[in-house]
């Protein structure tokens, strides 16, 4: 009996937890279907939805404000960054995992600590760099600094994944006459594929949300990212159209929602294998 009550209580807690996590997002979604004045005057919001209103709000957000275009930009920037980061980071992670050299651990930690730099300290110099290179206000102007942002964490997580693969496999391949590069390319890469997914995921999350550098590097709407689009919501000196702000919020959440359904197991796995063992 006591056990059963405990069980019921546990499920109650579980449901409360689920609600605490999802309720704010649902609230946002409900607000995004309303007229501005309805949000202000109906407390709590009623649940009668009018398709015409929903259409109007989302039409404004997706097309007039360009959030659809911004989403595409974000995907392009984050996608390109991720691919390039993997190309750069994987050999380094392999080296850290396989070679004992002086300062190995200090260097690895130094690289990780780059991840800890306050964005406010480096945003302006990065912007100036992009201006000198002539890539500001372009995809490349975002991709170049974002690679630097995501490299440290990706290297770090990949070290963990390489560490999981026994050294004997390398040795056997080298005995067979493979060079180190061949070992990495032909033998290691296929084995470490889940690690690549996980690492790129973690690299991607933080870039997806970056807006300070984007704020400076990007001038035209043509290259604005989704986080930058959301940032313009917070302008103190004008009335807030809460319904529109909520719809913008939903638009930024939906890709993440879809994404996280597919990659949830990689997230958990990434933290197990890469970050802590």
């Amino acid at each position, binding site marked *: 009996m006591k056990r059963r009550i405990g069980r019921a209580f546990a499920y109650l807690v579980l449901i409360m937890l*689920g609600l605490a996590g999802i309720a704010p997002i649902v609230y946002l979604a409900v607000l995004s279907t309303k007229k501005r004045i309805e949000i202000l005057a109906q407390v709590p919001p009623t649940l009668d939805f009018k398709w015409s209103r929903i259409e109007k709000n989302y039409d404004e957000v997706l097309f007039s404000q360009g959030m659809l275009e911004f989403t595409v930009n974000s995907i392009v920037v984050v996608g390109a960054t991720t691919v390039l980061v993997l190309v750069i980071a994987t050999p380094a992670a392999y080296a850290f995992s396989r070679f004992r050299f002086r300062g190995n651990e200090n260097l690895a930690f130094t690289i990780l600590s780059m991840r800890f730099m306050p964005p406010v300290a480096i945003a302006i110099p*990065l912007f100036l760099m992009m201006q000198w290179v002539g890539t500001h206000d372009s995809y490349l102007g975002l991709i170049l600094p974002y690679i630097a942002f995501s490299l440290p964490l990706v290297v770090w997580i990949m070290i963990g994944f390489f560490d999981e693969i026994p050294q004997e496999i390398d040795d056997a391949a080298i005995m067979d006459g493979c060079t180190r590069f061949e070992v990495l390319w032909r033998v290691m890469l296929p084995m470490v594929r889940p690690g690549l997914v996980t690492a790129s995921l973690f690299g991607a999350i933080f870039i997806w949300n970056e807006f300070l550098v984007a704020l400076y590097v990007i001038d035209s709407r043509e290259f604005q990212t989704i986080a930058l689009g959301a940032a313009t*919501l917070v302008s103190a000196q004008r009335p807030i159209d809460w319904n529109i702000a909520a719809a913008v919020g939903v638009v930024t959440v939906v890709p*993440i929602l879809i994404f996280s359904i597919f990659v949830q197991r990689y997230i958990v796995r990434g933290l197990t294998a890469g970050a802590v063992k």
Partner: protein
Amino acid sequence: MTPASRERLGTKLGKLDRPGTVVWLLLAPTLLYLAAFAIFPLFYSLRLSFTDLTAAAGTGDWVGLRNYGDLLRDPHFWNATKNSAVMVGASLAIQVVLGVALAMFFNLHLRGAWLVRGILVLPMLITPIVVGVMWRALLNPDWGLINWCIAAVGLEPPNWFGSIEMAMPTLILVESWQWTPFVFIIVYARLQALPQEVFEAAIVDGAKPLATFRFVTLPLLMPAIIFAAVFRAVDSFRSFDLIFGLSYGGPARSTTTLSFFSFQNGFQWQNYGYAAAVSYMMLLILAVGTIVLLRFVQIRPGYAK
């Protein structure tokens, strides 16, 4: 590729294949890239912090340590430092305790728990600015859902971002909503990876559940907890976008952390020199924190055992 040319390539690669060379070849892209894109900005900021550069005056004359001297005499800097300490300390305590508790709770493997776990991962993936806007709506004094709920059960809703006493706790509340899952997932993952025999052995030995947790589980979880805590501490120390979206440093200066203080000086008032000095004080705090931390624990993948 013909076998002959393959062989030639092989010898060429063979020369590059000496361990001493190969390490640096493998590391070079990462090191060079970070040198260009991380070290340069750091030195740039450092140099900036010794100048009086503002957008308006634009001279950028060398002023030596003046900015740092001004900073140490600036009560707002100390106020921001205090706010940062409170925010990092409190967020960390709450998130670590709750995160570990959640991990233990999900270790019960209730039916449907996977779904809730999926939901709990969501907040940390949402753009902090959107989190800010979302909670501003939830906590709106006039029509927000939370105040309505509190009033519905007959209580007086707190003056969330309208009073100095409540503003920081409210900020920490939202921060914890977003980031407790991060600690939870890491600790939970570690918990899953632990060999079950250890716990079974403890139970066989007749240990009470609480004692098992205190003397068996917790020590085994420690590396994961420390890892998560370090990440959270640093991220909440340097985060400014949540504050940007939520309270804009106010009311008065009660939620102006160092990070936001630096943002304000550099990005709103264009006092680049001064803002760079603030950033460098932040880096100094981070560096000291890291060195102290490394004395006690070692965090490296595969080594954190």
